[in-house]
């Protein structure tokens, strides 16, 4: 049996190239794969399209990736938070593009991508600015917005435990977008707090089956949101 473990951070993220579309887990700070993001920063990639809920906090995680000029476009639901000042500065300077997607639509577009669907009909955003340009479909006597599926070339996710096959569990609200993003990328990279032996995870409590995970990197527990500059 092939063990999906990456021995080094560079092994885990090294195949990411300039211009890639990357789904990045997290809501606020919990569930953000900060170590993997640091790995991408260290690679110095450019023109990435990042799909994630927030526009980063302080100078760590997504904020660091933005600050170091790696991101060409951000697709998110909540860009304008006080703590996302790094994003605002680059956005105001015209150095980064932004697409705003309602949060439920964002998670559902990603799930649809993961489930091999082309899109879905949602009541969300009907009649609003955020439905502009999107097809409106009538079905069962109601109007719905047709939203398209969204996939990544890569997904960077954060999980709690893994086994050698990449079966994952999560921790509290650090779960958030991670399980749906794990499904929706051509190559899914997980950072995990801890890896355990093949038979240690109860098959009933696995949230992300290992078939969705291409490699994982073990980080141990760390305090989230701390600045960890170029390693």
């Amino acid at each position, binding site marked *: 049996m092939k063990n999906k473990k990456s021995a080094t951070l560079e092994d885990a993220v090294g195949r990411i190239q300039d211009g890639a579309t990357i789904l990045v887990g997290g*809501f606020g700070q*919990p569930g953000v794969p900060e170590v993997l993001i640091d790995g991408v920063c260290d690679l110095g990639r450019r023109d990435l399209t990042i799909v994630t809920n927030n526009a980063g906090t302080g100078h760590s995680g997504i904020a660091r990736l933005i600050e170091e000029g790696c991101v060409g476009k951000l697709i998110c639901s909540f860009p304008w938070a006080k703590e996302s000042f790094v994003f605002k500065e680059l956005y105001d300077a015209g150095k980064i593009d932004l697409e*705003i997607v309602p949060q439920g639509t964002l998670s559902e577009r990603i799930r649809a991508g993961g489930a091999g669907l082309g899109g879905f009909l949602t009541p969300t*955003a009907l009649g609003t600015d955020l439905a502009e340009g999107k097809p409106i479909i009538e079905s069962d006597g109601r109007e719905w917005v047709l939203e398209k599926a969204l996939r990544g070339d890569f997904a960077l996710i954060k999980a709690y435990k893994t086994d050698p096959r990449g079966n994952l569990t999560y921790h509290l*609200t650090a779960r958030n977008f991670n399980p749906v993003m794990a499904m929706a990328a051509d190559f899914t990279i997980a950072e995990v707090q801890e890896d355990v032996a093949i038979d240690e995870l109860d098959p009933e409590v696995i949230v992300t089956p290992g078939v969705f995970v291409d490699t994982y990197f073990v980080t141990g527990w760390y305090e989230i949101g701390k600045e960890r500059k170029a390693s």
Partner: protein
Amino acid sequence: MNEQNTNLLTRLQIAARAAQDMEDGWLVNLGIGMPTMIPAYIPKDRDVMFHSENGLIGMGPQPAEGEADQDLISAGKELVTMVPGGAIVHHADSFAVARGGRLDCACLGAFQVVANGDLCNWRLPNQKSGSVGGAMDIAAGSKRVFAMMTHTDRDGRAKIVTERTFPLTAIGVVTRIFTDMAVISITADGMVLDEIAPGLNKDDVQAVTDAPLIMDNVGEIAIAA
């Protein structure tokens, strides 16, 4: 209006009044700001569960000193706790709860509410972009939407209007409005003034409300002790 300002409810008082409408057995989503003050005022004999769209069903109060977990936060990104019988789901499932008919009520802040229940709460007209977050999904999906806001803006202009000037969040979803002056229901017959703050009269409220109010049976808001 200036001479009446002392009769306006505080933010806590608005939250306390809205809390009285939270029914036993409900699942409720709370927007950021004033709505997050609701839980403290819910009558103790009612079992109300809180849904936080980041996958937390059964959100509890802030943790005691030293008992916080960095991975347990609310949608407003505050450290929180979980009540016994809570559950964690992923984001897509969390919004399935919100859109799928299992959210009894969403209490949301608002910039403007239109007479037909249109909600505007995600972006200012002069901003080219806003932070929509989960507002549109939750507003469109919840069985009831309660809007919480000051009755007028800083310049004294009505926020309950007949035509909106703010960008739309969701069409016709608001069922009740809680302000610092009144409690107003949106019904098939129109907007009904249910209650007014102590010391105000009906005309005070209508004077700062663009939409016409049905005022046949108006009570007084009970102020929590």
